[in-house]
């Protein structure tokens, strides 16, 4: 293979799993194939828990894959490589160092001469538009300026690959847009010393706006659902019909039912016993989304991109709510749409008591854990049970943390439905209402 055709980055059949306390393993990433070539921005798009950040950390050399290989310029990645730099979601600046010192840190680690460190750091600061802020401390800067320092710090080491972990998601909409545009300008003018970019994001529009290729991630375990090429010329316009079409297409991909349903995937759907991890979605959000879909102009069927922008929800927020409704059989997600089922519509139009009755019926029918809690309470003479009893059961299936979260989700829904009561102070479930 000649050098010209060697990809910057090549990941093949990457798998990542963490050991669980009971000896089994928790699979977070499987069958991951990725290739980054010179001049490309590749986007990893998915919701939290889809393993996209894990993959980025594997590329950065911050963790090791359980199987498969990651190669940077033909060499296996073993620990952080000199030619790969990262920009973090929370900026990860050292608060006790000035802007200049933060930027210079990566060069100090390389033991460069003082003069060179100074020249290169100042050049990077200049390039990214931080001139005049050299001696400021991060706390004195706004979020946008802080992330600029994050960019300068990554660029100063002249990396071949720039990794970006949701770099704009901690910023307000306006600032994020400015930073994105500035970045794309520098990129298209070739003024940055980088050859390729891997961008992790959960924002569909951001991915379409910035990337040449988008890998859409699915969860449980994380894997690539599909790959899309974006051939729209830069600068791209969000209102351009072909832009909208691509966004719509990605929504469809993300709501597609798996072809041959893999066992892991099914965990999000009902009927699998009490061992599934439940999402943290409040009853208010569930009711809110049902109301919004039931109301005009949607009247029971809503286009996801449309309702996402109407409600100002990112996919990271919208999808868990939609999927919970699907799990409770109040709605169906398919083809980029959310459609309310009969009981979903009934719920949206009912008064509070009726809503609770409908919710209780669905909760006890379609959430096995809720049914289980209720059954235990019904069967016992005392009509009460310790929380630890259920936690122990759940931990056979999932991690301690997930067990706790899952039980909390059930408590939340059970309280709303008045299916059972829970006293946090004594960690007791019961059927009684507080006196």
């Amino acid at each position: 293979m000649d050098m010209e055709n060697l990809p910057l980055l090549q990941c093949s059949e990457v798998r990542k799993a963490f050991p669980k306390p009971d000896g089994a393993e928790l699979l977070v990433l499987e069958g991951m194939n990725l290739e980054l070539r010179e001049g490309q921005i590749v986007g990893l798009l998915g919701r939290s828990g889809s393993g996209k950040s894990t993959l980025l950390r594997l590329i950065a050399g911050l963790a090791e894959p359980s199987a498969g290989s990651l190669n940077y310029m033909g060499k296996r990645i073993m620990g952080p490589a000199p030619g790969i730099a990262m920009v973090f979601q929370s900026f990860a600046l050292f608060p006790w160092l000035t802007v200049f010192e933060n930027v210079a840190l990566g060069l100090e680690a390389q033991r460069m001469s003082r003069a060179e460190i100074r020249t290169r750091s100042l050049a990077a600061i200049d390039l990214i538009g931080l001139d005049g802020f050299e001696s400021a401390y991060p706390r004195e800067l706004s979020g946008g300026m802080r992330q600029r320092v994050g960019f300068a710090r990554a660029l100063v080491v002249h990396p071949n690959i720039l990794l970006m972990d949701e770099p704009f998601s901690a910023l307000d909409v306006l600032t994020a847009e400015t930073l994105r545009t500035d970045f794309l300008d520098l990129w298209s003018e070739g003024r940055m010393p980088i050859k390729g970019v891997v961008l992790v994001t959960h924002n569909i529009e951001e991915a379409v706006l910035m990337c040449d290729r988008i890998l859409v991630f699915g969860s449980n375990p994380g894997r690539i659902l599909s790959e899309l090429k974006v051939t729209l010329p830069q600068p791209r316009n969000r209102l351009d019909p072909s832009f909208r079409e691509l966004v719509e297409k990605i929504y469809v991909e993300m709501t597609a039912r798996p072809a041959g349903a893999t066992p892991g995937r099914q965990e999000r759907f009902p009927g699998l016993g009490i061992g599934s991890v439940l999402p943290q979605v409040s009853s208010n959000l569930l009711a809110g989304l049902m109301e919004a879909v039931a109301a005009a102009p949607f009247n029971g069927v809503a286009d996801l991109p449309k309702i996402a922008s109407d409600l100002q929800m990112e996919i990271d927020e919208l999808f868990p709510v939609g999927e919970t409704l699907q799990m409770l059989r109040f709605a169906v997600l398919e083809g980029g749409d959310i459609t309310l089922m009969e009981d979903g519509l009934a719920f949206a139009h009912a008064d509070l008591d009726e809503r609770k009755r409908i919710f209780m019926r669905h909760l006890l029918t379609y959430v096995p854990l809720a049914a289980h809690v209720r059954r235990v309470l019904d069967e016992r003479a005392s009509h009460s049970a310790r929380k630890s009893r259920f936690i122990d059961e759940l931990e056979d299936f999932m991690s301690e943390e997930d067990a706790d979260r899952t039980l909390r989700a059930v408590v939340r829904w059970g309280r709303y439905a008045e299916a059972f009561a829970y006293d946090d102070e004594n960690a007791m479930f019961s059927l009684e209402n507080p006196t």
Partner: protein
Amino acid sequence: MNRFEPYVFLRGLASRWDVLAFIVVIGLIVFLGETSRGLFAPLGQLQQTPLSLNPVHLPEYAARTTFRMLAGLFLSLVFTLTYATWAAKSERAGKLLVPILDILQSVPILGFISITVVFFMSLAPGRVLGAEFAAIFAIFTSQAWNMAFSFYQSLRTIPIELTEAAESFRLSPWMRFWQLEVPFGLPALIWNMMMSMSGGWFFVVASESISVGHTTVALPGVGSYIALAIADKNLGAIGWAIATMLIVILLYDQLLFRPLVAWVDRFRVEQEPGVRVPQSWALTMMRRSRLIQAATVAFHSAVLWTSRAVKRVDAPIVDVAERPRRRSLDLLWVSLIVLALVVSLWHIVAVLIRQTSVGEALQVGGLAFLTMLRVFVLIALASVVWVPIGVWVGMRPRAAQFVQPIAQFMAAFPANLLFPIAVYGIVTWKLNPDIFLSPLMILGTQWYILFNVIAGASMIPAEMRYAAANFRVTGWLWWRKVGIPAVLPFYVTGAITASGGSWNAAIVAEIATWGDSQVQAKGLGAYIADATTAGDFHRIVLGIGTMSLFVVVINRIFWRPLYYYAERKYRMT
């Protein structure tokens, strides 16, 4: 960008801050030289130049005392940076090191001073150095555990993204330690240093004049001065000593801790907006002075230079969770621990069990119970007094601004300096020592309750107070539903510190002398103090062991659960 021009402080004339800084620095050097000169003198010289109660000598004594304090602080810092780092970095070592630290925190080292004196004297026989070491060691023990704990906790809570950033920019472990871990841990460390100061002053005063069996060593210092004043029944001299100590603590606070606290503010990762930035004139002086700026640049360069010098080893990264356990090493480690356990147990059995009759053990247990009763009653009394006052002050920002530093100052003041006055009263009016000596135990530690409650009350959100007022929640109902719950987590923190300090203080508070008359309360503290004076090794160990056991058990079954309960239920986030 003048940071990279090495001789920046030669440019232009020195600023007035330079002059000030120069004087302070030279003063410090002279002070260090003066005070350390006596270290290598033979012990006999202490007898030849006996202490004098003439107040003229007090500045010198105060300087000696302060020097011990600084030395203890420095040692604690060295200990912290090594021990805590080891505990945090090595999972295996941490399993043992952290519980050890936890127990050490509860051991009343004050009772051990006599033993350590013998040990250190044998290291430097016939020299003052040995006794000095013992005193410095006592200070060390009053601060090191706290500081190490705080640093350990900081190391464990470094935000994951900062660690990842350091890793992905390939900082060497040495560089990471100085550029990430130490700066991140500094704010908590400095705060803990300041908090454990009171213990430090308390100990230095108590440890300067030590009599073990027949030998009495009196190191020149404020503590010895007080001891002499007590023996001479000189109330005026005690007044002078108290005044001197007030000034010393004020200077220490202004010259060392204020600047430190103001300086470490920049190391805080999370900044709540609207929080007032701590101010310090001394820090302003240091910042403005080019001389001192150059010194800090030099330190920074040293860190960078050593970073270059220490070779970087590129080890492949393996997740902690996946690291293959090396069985043989594990086995070795476990067997080492078991061995240490067996040896310790054997020693404990040999010293304690064989020489202790059941009757004596029961007696010590009973005494410990008495002391415990005292501590709880006193904490309860102090709470009844200080919680309402603290809440009242805390809700009035202007009053809080005024009272808070005073409370902190009172906490730092070594209460044992005030004991002679109380003892004088007890002896003169023939009061019952079982009752009237007790308040001394809490004299110095009650302030922790006050300033923690003030801090808690000042954090009650204004809207919550408005809501209470709006619904006309007043009087006892207000205290039950608003005031007390809101400050409870803070109060418990303060009460834990106060309780621990009081146990320690019992050793010097339950027995007191004034000239040739001695008053004594029944309790474990008096028992330990008695054993120390008699040089009775096995009784000292028995007493201290029992006290440690009581403190540890009370912490585990009372304070800790209470703390977690308060944290969970009442902490406002």
